[in-house]
């Protein structure tokens, strides 16, 4: 059983929902990322999605675009991101880490080399935004052989046939993108999400985590109620941008943001 599967199973056993924060590695500075990851865990994170910065983040809105720019200004490479995970693992052996990014940096490293390095660093899952399962037939086995979870996206536009096919290629969880748009656009419609997630649950046994548009305790609870977990991204990254000058204040601000979400999610527990 992968670390991701273990965490999600145990949460389910307790009737709890997963809190999955996203930050971009290297933002605001590569030296801070590992510290921020520990801060997220202390504030209640169950799984961390760590963004690999890319020069052309086509699926992201301005908030995460700027995070990529800040990280790249300091030269944050995929190699460095892997080193950050390795360093995180020195103190935290339990919290799963999912790398989320675009295909080109992984291809540039070489897929097999990347898969090996990811395992070595202690990465648990890979989510490649611009890699649909149709194009993943060479990469997917490299991940499966190494017990790395391949996490794919489902969208409001995904047809039933594709939901089934994508789920078959996925392990760990599937990531449901709550609305049509880029990250940070924030126009989530909870009723619509509830209906679609319920439908996805009929088509796959995998846990369904929902991301895009979750920005506070209220949206976290509303979406948590109908899914297995929530992914929180742009609002955290925006907090990083606003507090980049003062690392201590930044950590406090991230905690202050996540804590109420954790509490709201746990208050759902039956």
């Amino acid at each position, binding site marked *: 059983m992968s670390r991701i599967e273990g965490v999600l199973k145990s949460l389910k056993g307790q009737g709890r929902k997963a809190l999955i924060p996203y930050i971009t590695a290297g933002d605001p500075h590569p030296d801070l990322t590992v510290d921020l990851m520990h801060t997220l865990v202390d504030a209640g994170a169950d799984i961390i999605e760590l963004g690999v910065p890319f020069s*052309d983040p086509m699926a992201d809105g301005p908030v995460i675009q700027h995070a990529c720019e800040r990280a790249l200004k300091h030269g944050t490479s995929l190699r460095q991101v892997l080193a950050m995970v390795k360093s995180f693992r020195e103190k935290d052996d339990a919290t799963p880490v999912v790398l989320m990014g675009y295909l080109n940096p992984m291809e540039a490293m070489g897929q097999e080399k990347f898969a090996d390095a990811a395992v070595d660093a202690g990465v648990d899952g890979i989510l490649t935004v611009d890699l*649909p399962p149709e194009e993943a037939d060479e990469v997917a086995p490299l991940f499966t052989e190494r017990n790395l979870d391949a996490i794919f*996206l489902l*969208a409001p536009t995904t047809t039933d046939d594709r939901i089934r096919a994508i789920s078959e290629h996925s392990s760990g969880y599937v990531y449901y993108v709550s609305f049509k748009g*880029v990250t940070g656009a924030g126009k989530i419609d909870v009723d619509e999400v509830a209906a679609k997630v319920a439908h996805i649950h009929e088509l796959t046994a995998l846990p369904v985590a929902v991301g895009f548009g979750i920005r506070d305790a209220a949206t976290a609870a509303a979406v948590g109620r109908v899914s297995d977990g929530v992914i929180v991204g742009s609002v955290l990254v925006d907090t990083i941008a606003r507090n980049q000058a003062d690392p201590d204040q930044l950590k406090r601000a991230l905690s202050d943001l996540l804590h109420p979400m954790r509490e709201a999610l746990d208050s759902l527990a039956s």
Partner: protein
Amino acid sequence: MKLTEEMLKALPDARGHFGAYGGRFVSETLFDSLLTLEREYKRLKDDPEFQAEFDRDLAHYVGRPSPLYFAERLTRETGGAQIWLKREDLNHTGAHKVNNTIGQALLARFLGKKRVIAETGAGQHGVATATVCARLGLECHIFMGEEDIRRQSPNVYRMKLLGAEVHSVTSGTRTLKDAMNDAMRDWVANVDETFYIIGTVAGPHPYPLLVRDFQSVIGRETREQCLDRTGKLPDALVACVGGGSNAIGMFYPFLTDESVELYGVEAGGLGIDTGQHAAPLCAGRPGVLHGNRTYLMEDENGQIAGTHSVSAGLDYPGVGPEHSWLKDIGRAHYVSVTDDEALDGFRKLTRVEGIMPALETAHAVAYAIKLAATMDKDKVVVINISGRGDKDMQTIAEIDGIEV
């Protein structure tokens, strides 16, 4: 490799691959739209009504066929092969881009989409898109990098006159690549009502296929006109390559004619060895950007590299996947000329033939002159004059230190 009709028919394959290149590398939200577009295009491609309307528009709205002109004086001065010009600059709106926008706008109408978006670099594709949208009464949004808005301002004003909204793109390098990123972002957010008219043979499948099909009218006409006027096929075809749409349109109908040499000319910028260029086929390596696998300019960590070219329309770090395939199998040659050489080409054609090419096109002109000089007088070289240079007056004047 000798290409046959059979082999060409099989490409791209069902997943949109040209050999190792192409494909559909997009976020999930767009996937179903791409499948629908592919399905509908396959159906309409063989629909006589659709084809007849496309042909009618090309004839009466664009003004096709465009002439194949013998550049007699340029030929004499060059002292080698005969130089012929395929005059896409004479099309309505002044470039080859309109062949494609007519086709895609028709698709948009058949699909019932009321809102159109497009990216543009030089502004020619933006103008061509705004033009067809005005004609069909479609809402039109053009994404253009801030840097390109500055250097191609006449085209920005043309788009606005045509009723398009021009969105200034301030992310990344503020050029064509970033305009395409923002167009994709808009598309994801408005996917139900929006048709994305991509301006070149790049992007996710089926775009490289349908743009190539719409642009192939250039090569089909050239083939017929050349046979008619010279009694034989051309010996060499020369076209500039940004994303590669005018080049593939010219090359495609000649791919199985082994005797016809194909030359795609990339932007060498300040020189390939300076790194300041936009020549992924000459100096890049395969990677994934904007929905397809193709040759790219990138750094050792897989970040897309900044590009430089004097011409906004060539200032792009990628290239259509079919060109990547043609390069690997050795069917086409990909070369580059520098900014300075292109400017010389611009001045030469202007002064010797009274034809002012776009700066993009000037790259093809510059290379073709070098090439023709090495060939015998009975050989025939055809340059695709992809567009006219009116839009570049400001850039040229700036270089000359003149205020206009």
